[in-house]
């Protein structure tokens, strides 16, 4: 009986690894930008071709950068959460319209509501690549100095907002 203890023990160790591994989500690729300055860009605004928007315009405040597109189904899923957040007025949300048609983006916002103070228009997705965007929607929390503090991949949920994003935003705003 005793000779089974070692293989059994090894088996349980392997089961432990399997259990831990199954909980990991390979879709949540950690961003190498955490703690690094938000990559610069200077994009035309979605609603106003004559104006541009850049991260340095927002220095001095904490803000969220939300990458979205009119063709993105998950963005529709998170949209009510964003609208609700924009109404609460805790933090400005800047949208990045990723690989979209301008008219489609504008009418999508008209149809579903516009939570963004400003939307930047990234037609060819180059700014997206600069930010390491690989799937829409993604949300970045950027602090007053323009440093990325957090990246949330996938649709925002009330839980992730209340448990992670809003506490972080409040902490950064107090700093």
């Amino acid at each position, binding site marked *: 009986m005793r000779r089974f203890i070692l293989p059994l023990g090894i088996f349980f160790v392997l089961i432990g690894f399997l259990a831990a591994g199954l909980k990991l989500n*390979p*879709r949540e*690729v*950690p*961003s*190498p*930008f955490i703690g690094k300055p938000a990559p610069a860009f200077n994009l035309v605004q979605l609603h106003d071709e004559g104006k541009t928007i850049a991260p340095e315009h927002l220095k001095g405040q904490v803000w969220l950068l939300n990458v979205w597109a009119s063709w993105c189904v998950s963005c529709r899923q998170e949209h009510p959460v964003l609208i609700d957040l924009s109404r609460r007025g805790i933090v400005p949300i800047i949208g990045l319209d990723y*690989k979209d048609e301008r008219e489609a983006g504008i009418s999508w916002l008209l149809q579903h509501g516009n939570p963004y103070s400003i939307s930047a228009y990234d037609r*060819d*997705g*180059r700014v997206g*690549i*600069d*930010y*390491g965007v*690989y*799937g829409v929607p993604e949300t970045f929390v950027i602090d007053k100095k323009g440093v990325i503090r957090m990246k949330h991949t996938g649709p925002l949920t009330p839980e992730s907002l209340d448990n992670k994003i809003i506490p972080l935003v409040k902490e950064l705003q107090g700093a």
Partner: protein
Amino acid sequence: MRKLISLLLMAAAFSVAAGEAPSASADPALEARVQAISEELRCLVCQNQTIADSHAELAIDLKNQVREMLKKGMSNKQVVSFMVERYGDFVLYRPPVKNTTWLLWFGPFLLFAAGLGVLYFKLRRRGDRKIQALSAEDHAAAVKLLNDGKDLS
């Protein structure tokens, strides 16, 4: 009449031969470099494919980005580190050998060596056990069973 039409249609069908897709840039040396680098980068959407294989939009965008950077004169290493800066180590199709991935790369060899070690010790211990000679009774019984009860004497 019908046979003629179907024959003509078949001829028309065979006249369309699928050729190789024209490379995006006219420069085959550049394309070869793009291909080589693309085979080292992971598509983050279809995560088990390289961007060379994947047809996801992001993969195509990234390949175009690679091509542009090579045209600008960046080296292979610079292009790859551009991608790693933005997407992290996961974008490398082959995980880099670092402290954190040491176990990933050498773990299988360690396990194999451990297995060989266990085998060696087990075999040694078995060799130490003495073989007992069969008693006369057991020997007779064994012979009987082997001969299936038949008496061959």
